């Protein structure tokens, strides 16, 4: 039989359709506005050269969701959901700004930079978010609570905590090392892209180079069977939720650094939804089991590309949701089991017919 260019298994995979969808959306953008895909090197006033252009912007702005979605992929592979990530983003930003603007509360003279050691400003938010992830993990792993409900607690309470930390105030900062996280660039690439690359690589190596990924899939497919065969499923669950908490913290630092401020009400609003969508578009099933980290990155890029494309044509920002919904609906319908099976069946029938004709 003739070997086809793309193997049937790949065509049947959800990742393939996600990549097709992303390319189609980019193509639509390119047809409507030829400069949609242009990238150029520009030199800033301080002498650094940075890549500019819509594709770079898409990667840059997708960072927050991509980072969270890495953890969310593992959570969903376990058969769970974590809807507290958006609130954790707000908590992370609130604590960072609280320590950056310690002077507002302690000293009467306002200053622009921190009186706290800088590493505390970075470490404390991450530590807090990790602990919150631990809280989720213990509720779900040890107490066997339903993931949606267990994480609903921090989703509701998290924003309250963020407001208590800053006493309901919104601080702004001009402290350069902190602003560098979200706005700086290194080797010509915006720093958030580099942070995302590091996070994605670390998670992929951790999951695929150790047996951890296999454990996660095993627990996601059948927790009881995994436990009986000697896996400590509760520990695995806790590790995954702790990791998601930490990643939400990193995402929160990037977000608050981008806006040089904390915003307990709006920071990370709807991130949990975007992250879950990114994972599902990327081809990981909500029922748990097999997962695809690469697919999640593509899913996150799809969401950001839609947003950028719609914004590019001057549609009001709130209305993006309608376009997002339409495109996601198409992707989800294409990926749904009945439709995929039908396409795969037609394809295999065609290949089978071709084979017969030759024989």
């Amino acid at each position, binding site marked *: 039989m003739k070997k086809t260019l793309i193997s049937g298994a790949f065509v049947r995979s959800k990742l393939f359709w996600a990549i097709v969808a992303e390319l189609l959306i980019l193509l639509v953008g390119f047809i409507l506005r030829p400069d949609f895909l242009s990238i150029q090197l520009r030199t800033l006033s301080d002498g650094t050269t940075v890549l500019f252009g819509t594709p770079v912007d898409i990667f840059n702005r997708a960072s927050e969701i991509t980072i969270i979605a890495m953890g969310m992929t593992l959570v969903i592979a376990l058969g769970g959901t974590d809807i507290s990530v958006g609130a954790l983003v707000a908590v992370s930003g609130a604590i960072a700004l609280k320590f950056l603007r310690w002077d507002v509360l302690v000293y009467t003279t306002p200053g622009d930079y921190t009186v706290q050691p800088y590493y505390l400003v970075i470490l404390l938010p991450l530590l807090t978010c990790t602990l919150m992830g631990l809280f989720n993990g213990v509720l779900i792993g040890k107490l066997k609570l339903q993931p*949606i409900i267990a994480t609903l607690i921090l*989703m509701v309470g998290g924003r309250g905590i963020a407001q208590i930390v800053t006493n309901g105030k919104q601080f702004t900062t001009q402290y350069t090392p902190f602003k560098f996280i979200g706005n700086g660039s290194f080797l010509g690439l915006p720093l958030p892209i580099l942070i995302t690359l590091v996070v994605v690589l670390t998670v992929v190596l951790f999951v695929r180079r150790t047996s951890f990924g296999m454990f996660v899939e095993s627990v996601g497919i059948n927790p009881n069977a995994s436990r009986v065969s000697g896996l400590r499923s509760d520990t695995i669950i806790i590790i995954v939720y702790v990791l998601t908490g930490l990643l939400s913290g990193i995402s929160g630092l990037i977000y608050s650094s981008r806006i040089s401020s904390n915003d307990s009400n709006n920071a990370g609003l709807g991130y949990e939804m975007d992250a879950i969508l990114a994972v599902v578009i990327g081809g990981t099933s909500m029922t748990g089991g097999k997962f695809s980290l690469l697919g999640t990155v593509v899913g996150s890029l799809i969401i950001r590309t839609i947003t950028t494309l719609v914004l590019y044509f001057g549609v009001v920002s709130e209305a993006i949701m309608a376009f997002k*919904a339409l495109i*996601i609906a198409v992707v*989800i319908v294409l990926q749904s089991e009945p439709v995929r099976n039908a396409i795969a069946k037609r394809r295999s029938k065609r290949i089978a017919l071709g084979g017969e004709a030759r024989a």
Partner: protein
Amino acid sequence: MPENKTMTIASGRRMRNLLTNPKYLMVYATIGIFLLIYLFGALLYGGRGFTSVRTFMLFFSDNAYIGISAVGMTLVLITGGIDLSVAAVASLTGMIIAYGTTVLGIHPLVCIGAALLVGVGLGALMGACIQYLNVPPFITTLTGMFFARGVCSLISRESISIKHPLIDALAGFKIYLTWPNAQGEWVKIKPVASIDLNTIAFILMIVIGTIILQKTRFGRNVYAIGGNEQSATLMGLPVSRTKVLVYAFNGLCSVLAGISYVLYVKSGWNLSLQGAELDVISACVIGGVMLSGGVGYMFGTLFGVLLKATIPAIITFNGSMNSWWAKIFTSVLLLLFIIIQRAVIASSQWVKKKE
């Protein structure tokens, strides 16, 4: 009369069964904690009017939109699904009524009809997507939520106030509570308390929901699907039809909640009711509905809504606490309730094992 005696014994046993049945324990826990918190508020702020009939009636009328939506959500949760689109659909309803009435000058009833079509249609479409395309409810209704919010923003980004005699009349409708004074005349109680249309709609929807769940074949199918969908299919129950209908009914409840909210604020705004879907879901959870499906009662949901209403009320009466404490207390309550749920399930399993 021996027959009569056996009947008393039987009814006594039924009563005892009703009280000790683990099925109802969660509802009792909700009612118990509601009474405790109410008592707590009464002890602290009783002198400032916390215990007045007026405050109690406000629990209903201020939370009617949450309650009406929670009726549909209870059904959805019992089938083992979830619907995140309720708040967005309610917001869209408000926007359709506001834009239609104020900007286009269409009669509100026509707008309400259009909103009903959109809401029920979207609900049925989502139900069909969940049932026939096997897309998880979370993702389907999330897309529905994005769609409804987006359309809402496409219609208008500004808050549109509604001025129409019909809406004003509906919103202004009040039955004042009266009691006989010393002379035997009926006078308004003080401070003035009234039952408005939202309260009536809320109670009515709870009653309708109870009847649907407990007294109809449809309700039993809903429980059966939540208990075990595969068994329900094998038993020959109309699983597909029931599930699509449940989502359509929830769409109807969202639209009614939207109308109730319009009567409450008399305007439409694309960002109104943001995050209210979580209020609705948490009210159901506090009311003893389990997200794994198969367990839940309308009566519990009613008290879940009331319990969620008392917390902001106590914080308002306190005066010195910030509104974000309400979020923290609500999350503590949620934690408490799911741990009670867990304990109830564990203990009932333990009892079963012992038997």
